[in-house]
């Protein structure tokens, strides 16, 4: 029987150790892929992924059942990656500071990826995305590669929803340049 993410958390909290193994296995590849897009270094990614899932284990007893598991996992991965990369000075502090986005930004059409895909080969697209400033890249990857909704990205990155939409739209505009 396949359990949902929330059921696995509950089972672990009730003493089923194998539930954590199942949850880790389920999200391992996606968390690795997401982390690698930032670190772009295999050794760093392995360290970050290990730290991420250790933090998942440490936090699981306090997991807020009103939240969804997927954005919670990405939040831990995101914060772990940022902390690690800052310590190793693999990213600059300024790349983490986003522009100030208006909270009341109009809900414009966020654009599509098809225009970017039509214009770029996959490898070039990868390079372009990976070279984006961090605050654009993290939204773009979570939305377009990891298939999170804007609401889930907002939870994962602890940023307001309109900010996420703005970042996504501007990231697409940057890719199309």
């Amino acid at each position, binding site marked *: 029987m396949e359990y949902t993410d929330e059921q696995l958390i509950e089972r672990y909290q009730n003493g089923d*150790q194998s539930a*954590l*193994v199942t949850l*880790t*296995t389920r999200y*391992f*590849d996606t968390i*690795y*892929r997401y982390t*690698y*897009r930032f670190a772009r270094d*295999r050794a760093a990614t*392995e360290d970050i*992924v*290990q730290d991420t*899932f*250790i933090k998942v*284990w440490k936090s699981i007893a306090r997991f807020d059942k009103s939240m969804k598991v997927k954005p919670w996992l990405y939040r831990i991965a995101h914060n772990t990656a940022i902390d690690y990369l800052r310590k190793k000075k693999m990213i600059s502090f300024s790349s983490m500071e986003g522009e100030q986005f208006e909270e009341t930004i109009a809900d414009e059409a966020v654009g*599509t*990826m098809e225009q*970017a*895909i039509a214009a770029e080969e*996959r*490898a070039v*697209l*990868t390079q372009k*995305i990976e070279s984006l400033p961090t605050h654009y890249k993290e939204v773009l990857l979570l*939305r*377009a*590669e*990891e*298939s*999170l*909704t804007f609401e*889930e990205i907002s939870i994962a990155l602890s940023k307001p929803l309109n900010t996420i939409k703005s970042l996504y739209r501007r990231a697409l505009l940057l890719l199309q340049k």
Partner: protein
Amino acid sequence: MNQKPLFSLTEVSTPSGLLERVLLAIEHKQRMARLWRIRISVAISAASLAALIPASTALANSFALSHFTSYLSLLGDSAALTYWKEISVSILESLPAATLTMTIALVGVLLWSMRMAIRSISTNTTQLQHA
């Protein structure tokens, strides 16, 4: 609702064996945490048991000095029943409250730490059997 990925970048393959290494690392942390809980609970049990010896001696001495048993023995006297309220108050006042509270607290700590130690050891044994 999640949607299909809009695009695929160059594939990132997870190194073989990394998942197993991470699961082992988590298991190692879990084992260390269980051992710490066992050590701490056994240490608290030992400390509270050691403290209980002088505490219970002090409690016995306090009871002896407080005339508690004298007042208590009055309850058996039918003539004293007339003054049962006054005798009851005297009994309560003669209780060595401080040493009694301390001794009860130490017993509570001892029982709690022993329970924690037993549960931790039991969990650790179960996990070792499943490993």
